[in-house]
């Protein structure tokens, strides 16, 4: 079962590694019943890392350890976390950590498991980040649909506060940092960090013009320097502080170290979350861990990063590639938050692209004309094609409209919206041609 770990030989983690059963680092709820409870968490080493940081380490030392571990952001972009923390100006009187729990990317459901089943580890991770930048408060931004989860999370935070691990004068150190939960209300764009900050502030949840970036004065929450980190990113921090950077780097590959939660959905035998070291192959993840494709079907398309990254054709080359930020990029897609949507040989790729396009049209915040209008047109073209009324011109437009969006808008959603379109038109053109009657009618003359 998914507790199996490849312990890394750093140079060749997925081949020479010894397959050992190891406990989870992130999804510890899979190993320890009721770890969501404060007492159980503490009995299993919980909050030791925060105590270690606050009692024995300076904020700078914490940043150095996390930098040396080369922890990279799990929210999508893979940005080095230690570096992100180091950007925060030391002399700013007010500073914030915001935890991104908006989790709205189609195919992503890892932060929800962490927050529901192992919430104290996320709170502890957030407090370690907060200590590192000497934050004055933490806000956890939960998507609105996490309503029940957010209520429970507030209770967990209160438990930490009562144990003097959050709030006033934490562990008697003189440093105070309350932790709050903010509920969104249904908008994918609020996962984009600057939109998220606006949403907390009570202004419309649309992205901001940058610079200034969130880490800078003028760019963060209430315009104070702010770290925005994904839930899973922060859940790594306690283990790193307790076990050190070298132990962390022994998992995964040098450029992409550590464990990663892979969300498996779509046509897969055992959907769910799998915590595995980065650097295992697509094949190991999909077939060995998640049980392969149901009903003996062949795998056709892989979306490694939900709807927002390009689709990959499931070739042998792809299946043998390691899952690292670099190698998935080299294949022409992105690892993103590692939300794997699998599509078997019977999947209509035009239909799938239409679904994703509809998503982005719905979620475009409307601030930039190219994104607002472009996603509208793409969606309209897909509707026409699916009705059987598409033309060769529509196929041309599917390649042209993205040129009017990419690079011309305020945030990455614009590019995200173009990815499913371009990657399917290029790799599955024959399926589009079938729809618009360009392809040879199958067996019509025979």
């Amino acid at each position, binding site marked *: 079962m998914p507790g199996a770990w490849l312990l890394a030989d750093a140079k060749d983690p997925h081949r020479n590694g010894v397959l050992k059963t190891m406990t989870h680092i992130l999804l510890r709820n899979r190993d320890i019943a009721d770890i969501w409870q404060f007492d159980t968490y503490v009995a299993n080493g919980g909050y030791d890392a925060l105590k270690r940081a606050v009692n024995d380490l300076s904020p700078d030392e914490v940043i150095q350890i996390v930098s040396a571990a080369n922890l990279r952001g799990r929210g999508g972009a893979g940005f080095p976390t230690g570096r992100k923390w180091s950007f925060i100006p030391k002399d700013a009187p007010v500073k914030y950590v915001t935890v991104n729990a908006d989790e709205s990317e*189609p195919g992503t*459901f890892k932060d929800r498991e962490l927050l529901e089943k192992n919430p104290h580890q996320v709170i502890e991770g957030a407090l370690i980040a907060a200590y590192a930048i000497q934050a004055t408060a933490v806000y956890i931004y939960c998507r609105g649909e996490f309503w029940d989860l957010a209520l429970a999370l507030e209770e967990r935070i209160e438990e930490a506060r009562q144990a003097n691990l959050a709030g006033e004068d934490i562990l008697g150190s003189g440093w105070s940092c309350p932790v*709050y939960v903010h509920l*969104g*209300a249904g908008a994918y764009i609020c996962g984009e960090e600057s939109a998220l900050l606006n949403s907390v502030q*009570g202004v419309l*949840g649309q992205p901001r013009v940058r610079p200034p970036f969130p880490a800078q004065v003028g760019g963060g929450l209430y315009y104070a320097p702010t770290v925005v980190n994904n839930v899973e990113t922060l859940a790594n921090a306690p283990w790193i502080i307790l076990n050190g950077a070298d132990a962390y780097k022994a998992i995964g590959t040098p450029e992409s170290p550590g464990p990663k939660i892979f969300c498996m959905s*779509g046509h897969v035998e055992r959907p769910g979350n799998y915590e595995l070291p980065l650097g295992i192959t697509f094949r190991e993840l999909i077939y060995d861990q998640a049980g392969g494709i149901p009903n003996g079907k062949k795998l056709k398309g892989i979306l490694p990063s939900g709807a927002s990254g390009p689709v990959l054709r499931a070739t042998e080359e792809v299946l043998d590639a390691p899952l690292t930020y670099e190698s998935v990029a080299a294949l022409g897609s992105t690892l993103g938050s590692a939300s794997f949507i699998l599509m078997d040989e019977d999947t209509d790729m035009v239909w799938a692209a239409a679904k994703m396009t509809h998503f982005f049209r719905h979620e475009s915040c409307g601030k930039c004309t190219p994104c607002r209008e472009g996603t509208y047109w793409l969606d309209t073209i897909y509707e026409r094609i699916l009705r059987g009324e598409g033309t060769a011109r529509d196929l041309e437009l599917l390649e042209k409209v993205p040129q009017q969006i990419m690079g011309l808008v305020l945030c990455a959603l614009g590019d995200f919206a173009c990815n499913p379109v371009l990657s399917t038109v290029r790799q599955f053109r024959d399926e589009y041609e079938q729809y618009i009657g360009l392809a040879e009618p199958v067996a019509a003359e025979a």
Partner: protein
Amino acid sequence: MLAEKHAERIEKIFAKYPDKRSGVMALLYLAQEEYGWLSEEVLREVAELCDIDPTQVRSIAGFYTMYSEKPKGKFWLQVCTDLPCALRGADEFFSGLCAYLGLGERGGTTEDGLFTVEPVMCLAACDKAPMLQCNFHYHENLDLEKVKMLVEQWRAEAGQGDGAVG
């Protein structure tokens, strides 16, 4: 009025933030809970509470999918029909549910005002498809038979199920 009836909760909301404006989203939820939906009048009340312009509150209420500016059914069913769920039969599940409730292809509200059914985007439960949220609570690993049972349960809860099913 919210201010009188929920003074304590409102105070708690404002205590989280350095300014009142930031309370707007939580107050919209509170108002929706109290009144069922967000009418013009309610939006003005929220605006006054957090000291911002009613037009801004209106645009915020309109921006997010979880605020309703129209009355919804007593049970608001949001069915995920996004790609990962659709690969596991969510589209058929959605139409089956609509048909069972006598609604058209796109969902809507039943005549008795009991159910509103809407298709929604990914709810971070793709491994447990088909799924839906009923008044913001998750119901996962469903199929048509299971959801019909849930519907009847909700009908009974609303006190209108008596004798309706055999």
